[in-house]
């Protein structure tokens, strides 16, 4: 076949250029470690890399959300432990105060200690996280949630809490509102409270009672009136008698599905009240106890009944704190679980990204040496062939 001299030269140059361009591409891949220099190298792969990178970044964000929340929940858990300890101490003091042998000044000493505990409880309820946000303020975390004015403590926070996203499909509450933790604790035994009439002259006390059949309970305020030390009638708030009977100490008085026990000797005309329970705050529980212990006019029967109710409410508060603590613990566990699965998902995604994007060094190095060899061969053969010409032999 006829080959033109100019064609031979151009072809040789073009082939060497093309080999040099291949070497350049391989060299670039080796030096950047990146197989994809642009989307044109692998359009679907690049889209996948972008998507995976975005997912990894989102996953890291969720982890960081979780770790911030974890720190806040630890603080909340500590606050709840503190509050539980306060209530435990208050319980011990209440039991100690429920002793008819104590003088009123001794009861006042106890109430001073309770005053201290109330301060501690308010301070636990107003605890802040690392950003200075109030743990129990709900969404209005910049405002101090509990304000004490005299003996009463009011909740100024919001009724709802923020959510925090800890994984692509999990949003959990960032905390608990002070309202649900400290304010809405069921009073008395949870269904009703009992009280000794203020003007009773007898020595009888009433216990906190129990619910026998909750379906028969009609919420109302009932008055148990002793017409004489052995006969009583129970009337509701409308004055209608719902029950009556004879009484021997200690005697059970049961009506409308509940039962309560009166102990001691009531005087004629003594009254006891059984009222539907609302909610009480942990603070008012303590401050009511403080007021009771500070009041020298109360009979030991009245004190005993008050303390009995208070002990129930303290137990209610402790159990409420425990429930919240359990929920906090569950959330901490959820964060840990989300963190672990995020970690392994990220490892997998990073591996996928690197499989698509990263250069296979062994293959690329082998390719580079093959390409180098080809270029070297092209150069050497060109150099030797280009010298050949018939003109060299014509003398």
């Amino acid at each position, binding site marked *: *076949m*006829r*080959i*033109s*001299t*100019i*064609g031979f030269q*151009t*072809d040789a140059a*073009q082939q060497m250029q093309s080999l040099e361009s291949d070497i350049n591409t391989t060299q670039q891949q080796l030096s950047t470690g990146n197989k*994809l*220099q*642009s*989307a*044109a*190298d*692998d*359009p*679907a792969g*690049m*889209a996948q*890399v*972008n*998507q995976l*990178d*975005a997912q990894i*970044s*989102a996953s890291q*964000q*969720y982890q*960081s*959300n979780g770790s*911030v*929340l974890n720190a806040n929940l630890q603080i909340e858990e500590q606050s709840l432990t503190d509050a539980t300890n306060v209530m435990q101490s208050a319980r011990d003091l209440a039991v100690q105060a429920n002793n008819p042998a104590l003088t009123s000044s001794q009861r006042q000493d106890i109430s001073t200690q309770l005053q201290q505990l109330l301060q501690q409880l308010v301070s636990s309820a107003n605890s802040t996280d690392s*950003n200075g*946000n109030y743990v129990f*303020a*709900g*969404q*209005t*975390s*910049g405002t101090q949630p509990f304000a004490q004015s005299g003996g009463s403590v009011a909740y100024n926070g*919001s*009724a*709802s809490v*923020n*959510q*925090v*996203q800890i994984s692509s499909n999990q*949003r959990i509450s*960032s905390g608990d509102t002070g309202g649900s933790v400290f304010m809405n604790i069921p009073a008395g035994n949870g269904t009703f409270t009992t009280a000794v009439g203020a003007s009773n002259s007898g020595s009888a006390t009433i216990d906190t009672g129990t619910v026998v059949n909750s379906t028969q309970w009609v919420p109302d305020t009932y008055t148990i009136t002793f017409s004489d030390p052995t006969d009583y009638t129970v009337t509701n708030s409308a004055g209608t008698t719902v029950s009556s009977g004879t009484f021997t100490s200690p005697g059970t008085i049961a009506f409308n599905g509940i039962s309560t026990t009166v102990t001691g000797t009531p005087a004629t005309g003594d009254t006891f009240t059984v009222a539907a329970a609302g909610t009480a705050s942990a603070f008012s529980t303590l401050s009511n106890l403080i007021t009771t212990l500070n009041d020298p006019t109360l009979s030991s029967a009245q004190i005993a009944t008050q303390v009995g109710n208070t002990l129930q409410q303290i137990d209610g508060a402790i159990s409420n704190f425990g429930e919240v603590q359990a929920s906090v613990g569950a959330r901490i566990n959820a964060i840990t679980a989300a963190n672990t699965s995020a970690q392994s998902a990220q490892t997998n995604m990073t591996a996928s990204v690197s499989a698509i*994007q990263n250069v296979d060094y062994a293959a690329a190095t082998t390719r580079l040496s093959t390409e180098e060899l080809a270029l070297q061969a092209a150069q050497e053969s060109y150099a030797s062939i280009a010298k050949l*010409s*018939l*003109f060299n032999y*014509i003398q």
Partner: protein
Amino acid sequence: MVDVLRTSVSGLLAFQKALGVTSNNVANVSTPGYSVESAQFAPQPGESTSIGNFGIGVLVTGVTRSYSELLAGQMRSSQSSYSSFNAYATTAASVDNMLSDPSTGLTAQLQSFSNSLQTLANSPTLAASGTAVLSSAQTLATSIQGYASQLNSAEQNVEGQISSNVQEINTLAGNIANVNTQISEQTNLGQPPNSLLDQRDQLINQLSQYVSVNTATQSDGSLDVFIGNGQSLVSGGTAQTLSAIPDQYNPTQFDVSLATAGTAAATVNITGAITGGSLGGLLAVRSQVIDPTLNSLGQISVGVASIMNQQQAAGLTQTGAQGQPLFAVGAVQVSPSANNTGAAQVTAMRTSLSALTTDDYTLTSNAGNWQLYDQTTHQSIVMGGDGSAGNPFTAAGLSIVVSGTANDGDSYLVQPTATAAAGFNVLLTSPTQIASGAAVQAAAAPGNTGSGTIAAATVTDPTDPNLLTATSIVFSSATQYQIDGTGPTLTYTPGAAITADGWTTSISGTPAAGDSFTVSSNAGNIGDNTNLFAMIDGLSANALNGGTVSLTGASNSLVSQVGAQTQQAQANSQAQQAVNTSATDAVNNLSGVNLDEEAANMLKFQQAYQACAQMIQVSSQMFTTLITAIANG
């Protein structure tokens, strides 16, 4: 003797010419487009005598060039394809490189903006996190604007190249016409003007780099050149002028028009018919890569802006006010045709994000009716409404209002997203302007005795003037309720939507008579992050293309779309380069000079010349012998 002399002299002269042709071939060994020539020998007609016909030497009848019209045509067409794909791939690769970087790419920016909202949600009142959201929004805006401006400058670059390509084509066409004139003059003299033919072939090869051409040889040796759908560029000695003219809708874009032969000052727009060559590649990359990329980028910008702005309005800032728009975005571009004669005004605005497309449309007045035509899918679009301000045309997520009177045939180009990205800006300056909280809160009254619970209220119409006014829902019985104590008594269905004042909620459980619920401004709850999650959810939802594609999905497919176009153009360019190389090889192998061949020819003609010279010497000796014999006789 005289015969011998005459015959030898004819050989001397012939081989001298042949050596001349050989030396010309050797001299042109590196001349591009040179076709190797060879002297054609023929015996001189002999003299007839009674004893036979005696030859009287050799004659050079002509000099022919080694040339194949077929091979030259193959080389030209592969050259056109290669130039076209090469121009396409070069521009597409610059767009591809711009979009490709995974660490600074659009998807990464969108994710990091969403991440900044997550961080803010962890602590909505923390000013540092709010500032981080704004700076992340600014980074996103800068990057989208940067893309738009790079695409616009790529477009300007393409326009510049279109304009210079048109000039080159005109110069080459003029040269071809000149050479045509000379060729036809010389052809009429009898012998083919080889060097002029080579020169013209070379000019046509150059022309085919710019645009795909067809040729037809005329009987006088001149060659007619056609481009597009057979529009004449060169006819004999006349070249028509190609011009880059402003597009009728967009004066910054060039169309290509060709002067019509015969009719003075008449031109025909052949933009759509131009294929091949760098001009064809440039026109294709503009309409297939640059413009669609701008539109897609615009769609994503509109998506981000409309999701965020809508949610801003549906939430409250830390000062208790409804949020202001976070992002500005370029408006719908409506461009009247330069050919319009009527006085109609067309304005368009976006009404639905999910119905919005990345296509461009033309709105044309036809016999009193307005017709919308999708330029990308080449389909007519049915519009709702009548185009008045009260009842605008609706189509493709747009509402279009036409005022004034148009003449028949007047048209407008409607580009829903083309300039959106260039106008993508952050409007807010202070972190306190971010509406992180929900606008309204729903709550049950504290004294309720029933078990009814109310769900969180969501905003359905942020523009409702009574949105933030407290509204009560009071149950007169377990099954009936009234809104604000004045409205009609409504029947309660657990879980059914209750809507008023621009919000919607639902109540479930069993409310008791006298129970009440309120929906009121959430202004007191300045640490609320509910609206931030609504923003995050909005950004990750499938909001585009009829609710099928998310923002990151659109951004990823933009990258892979441009990547695939670039990849294809690069692959085609390489393939066509190989085809072109082999076509060029074929031409070179036929028409190129081979020095070894010339060396052999040189020896051959040299030896023949020497032999003829010897024959003259023989003839001279014969002559001398005869003269001496006579003298001695």
